[in-house]
């Protein structure tokens, strides 16, 4: 029976890739293990092997095609005597072949839902679509051009262009002196960066993930965050610790942790956790210029997402100012980082049920714009917080206590914290889904606080 050969996923988080080269042509017979094509993503290149025996009946996606979605039919495999017409291709997302080699920058994915009622840019500003990945890269390269003391250090940041390709092109532009590959030595390079910051440089430390930063947490907290205080102001650490934080997909308990609540607690640190590309860019530029150590928590699942990006020179976003993505009257949904995805999706669905949700993106957790939360809660009288981290000592529990102290009389229902489940991240796909916060849970929480 004729079957479709689908675009493979090279990793759990891959959404699309480039079909770089076909190594077979129509009419060729293939057997299991034969290499049929080369697939490239912004992270890696892989040879794509045949699983079943058969004849390549038709090639549906030409070589050189970029942005081919995972699970798109790329060819049809037929048996002896069959015709390609025996199969009805599914609605393939056909991408235009291009003659260009592998792209330098990641290709934009479709825009996430966004209703931005308090934009950070003036009306009429030209807007382009840009991925979070490109936004972070642009923020770093702009700041490295602006200040020669800024440098990037971490594992795989230079030659490999970043484990998640955030530092694409930086080595070429700035050279090995300012884009520095390190051995696997998180405690070591975090401490070296701290020392160099105290001696006048402005390091950006990339952790391949924030899970690995646990190796370096003494340097982050005891040295970076406290030395200005402990030296009577003589010596500070102007630096950024950045990298993906929280769950990616199928990377298990030790590589899926959300550290937002951990770092948010530390006086001496500033903590940013952007959701959109424009916030990723604007906040990272602000972080690099800040004279204090900044924890910059990214999310691997958001790297490929595209958002509106204002075409403004030197675009920055201030710390401590929340963004209201959607105005509403019935409930305030407060979130940050990838939690915003659930918050916005929930708000869309709730609107269909006639519930008007105000959605607030905190953007920075320290300083935290509690004034915007309080103002919103005074209007809506109800609040639901959303985050992927664990419930005990969560960001949401802090927000709840602030609301209790400053807007208790305005509350018509207890605040509900939607969080991840109180377990290490399960490795199993079905359990992982259940362990994370879901849009349905946010909807249920809103219905509970609105007594629907």
């Amino acid at each position, binding site marked *: 029976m004729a079957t479709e050969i689908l675009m493979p996923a090279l990793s759990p988080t891959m959404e699309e890739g480039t079909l770089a080269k076909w190594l077979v042509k129509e009419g060729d017979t293939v057997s299991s293990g034969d290499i049929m094509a080369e697939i490239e993503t912004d992270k890696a290149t892989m040879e794509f092997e045949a699983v079943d025996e058969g004849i390549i009946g038709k090639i549906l996606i030409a070589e050189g095609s970029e942005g081919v979605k995972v699970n798109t039919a790329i060819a049809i495999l037929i048996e002896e005597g069959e015709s390609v017409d025996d199969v009805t291709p599914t609605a393939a997302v056909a991408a235009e072949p291009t003659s260009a080699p592998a792209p330098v920058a990641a290709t934009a994915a479709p825009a996430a839902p966004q209703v931005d009622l308090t934009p950070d840019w003036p009306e009429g500003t030209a807007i382009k679509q840009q991925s979070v990945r490109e936004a972070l890269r642009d923020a770093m390269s702009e700041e490295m051009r602006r200040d020669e*003391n800024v*440098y990037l250090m971490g594992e795989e940041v230079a030659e490999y262009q970043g484990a998640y390709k955030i530092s694409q092109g930086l080595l070429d532009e700035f050279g090995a*002196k*300012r884009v520095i590959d*390190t*051995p696997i*030595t998180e*405690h*070591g*390079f*975090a*401490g*070296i*960066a*701290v*020392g*160099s*910051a*105290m*001696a*006048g*440089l402005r390091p950006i430390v990339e952790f391949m993930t924030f899970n690995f930063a646990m190796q370096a947490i*003494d*340097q982050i907290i*005891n*040295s970076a965050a406290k*030395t*200005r*205080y*402990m*030296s*009577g*102001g*003589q*010596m*500070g650490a*102007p630096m950024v610790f950045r990298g993906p934080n929280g769950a990616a997909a199928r990377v298990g308990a030790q590589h899926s942790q959300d550290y937002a609540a951990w770092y948010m607690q530390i*006086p*001496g640190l*500033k903590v940013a956790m952007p959701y959109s590309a424009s916030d990723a860019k604007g906040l990272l530029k602000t972080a690099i210029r*800040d*004279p*204090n150590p900044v924890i910059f928590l990214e999310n691997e699942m958001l790297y490929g997402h595209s958002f509106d990006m204002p075409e403004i020179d030197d675009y920055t976003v201030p710390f401590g100012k929340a963004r209201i993505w959607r105005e509403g009257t019935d409930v305030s949904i407060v979130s940050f980082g990838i939690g915003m995805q659930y918050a916005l999706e929930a708000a869309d669905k709730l609107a269909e049920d006639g519930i008007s949700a105000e959605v607030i993106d905190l953007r920075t957790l320290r*300083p935290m714009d509690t004034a915007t939360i309080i103002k919103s809660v005074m209007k809506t009288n109800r609040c639901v917080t959303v985050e992927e981290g664990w419930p005990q000592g969560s960001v949401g529990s802090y927000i709840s206590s602030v609301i209790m102290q400053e807007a208790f009389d305005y509350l018509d229902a207890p605040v509900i914290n939607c969080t991840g489940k109180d377990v290490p991240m399960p490795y199993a796909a079905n359990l992982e889904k259940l362990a994370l916060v879901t849009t349905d849970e946010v909807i249920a929480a809103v219905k509970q606080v609105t007594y629907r």
Partner: protein
Amino acid sequence: MPIQADHELSGVTVFLDPAGLPVLDLPRFARHRETLVALYSAMVRTRTFDAKAISLQRTGRLGTYASSLGQEAVAVGIASAMSDEDVLLPSFREHGAQLWRGVSLEEMFLFWGGDERGNDFAVARQDFPVCIPVASQFPHAAGVALAMVQKGEPGVAVAVGGDGATSKGDFYEALNMVGIWTLPAVFVIANNQWAISVPRVDQTRARALADKAVAAGIPGEQVDGNDVIAVREAIERALVRARSGKGGTLIECLTYRLGDHTTADDASRYRADEEVSSHWSEEPLVRLRAYLVAHHGWAKKDEEALLHGCRDQIEKAAEAYLATPPQPVRSMFEYLYADPTQDQAAQAGELGDA
């Protein structure tokens, strides 16, 4: 056949033996009376400071204090070899180095008395405050060295830690990076034979702590840490090497902690008196004084004048420290961030000092 660390140790460098007799031709700097007197005076001043600090602590006027009794030659030897453009990253037992570099006695008392303004040095501003988390100063030093290379500055970063610090991961990670990047950093181990109550023999099976340089591919050597001339000579060589772009060096100074770990410790509970007594014959002041007496006419009146001068200086600094008014409440919130935040102002206001 298993690989063994069987390379040759070059031996322990020493110029003056415990009796003050030269066992090698002295290096050039040690042929001048003024230089030797300056080194001796700095060690005496350090010992006098330690004694005063302990007496202030015992009478409730200073916080927990770590004496450097018996280790004065390490600190003074290191600092006396350094240039102004170098950066010192001390542990909590290098008072002699800090004083030599220009940190004032009053600043030292302030810091140990619990006032962090004591770490805001009027001079030696590039030097790091006393490092409390064990071994975390070594990565910092590698970072300072990296900054010097990046900025094209001529300095060298000099970090000092104890024998106990060499068991920590951050020490190894930093040493390794100094090797990889050929950084201008000198790591000095003041091996005083005790990590609180754990003796050197129970810390590592390495024959010498200097051997730990082998894994990082940089030179390591041992010197007699009670011979200030040997310490200074070895540090000078390491500094020259670093300045000429050849990278870092690990120097192990063999010394002995004659006092308790800190004022919160009572070493007599785990260390035999006889062991301590035997080390008093090797301490650093006696041998240099003997040499000065024998070769440079150091007389009783010189010694008395030095002691009197040190006591006088230290008493005055202690009085100034004790007369420093307590910090205002708002200072609790100062220096946390480069610019004060609204939250800090609000907290200070709640405590009645907005």
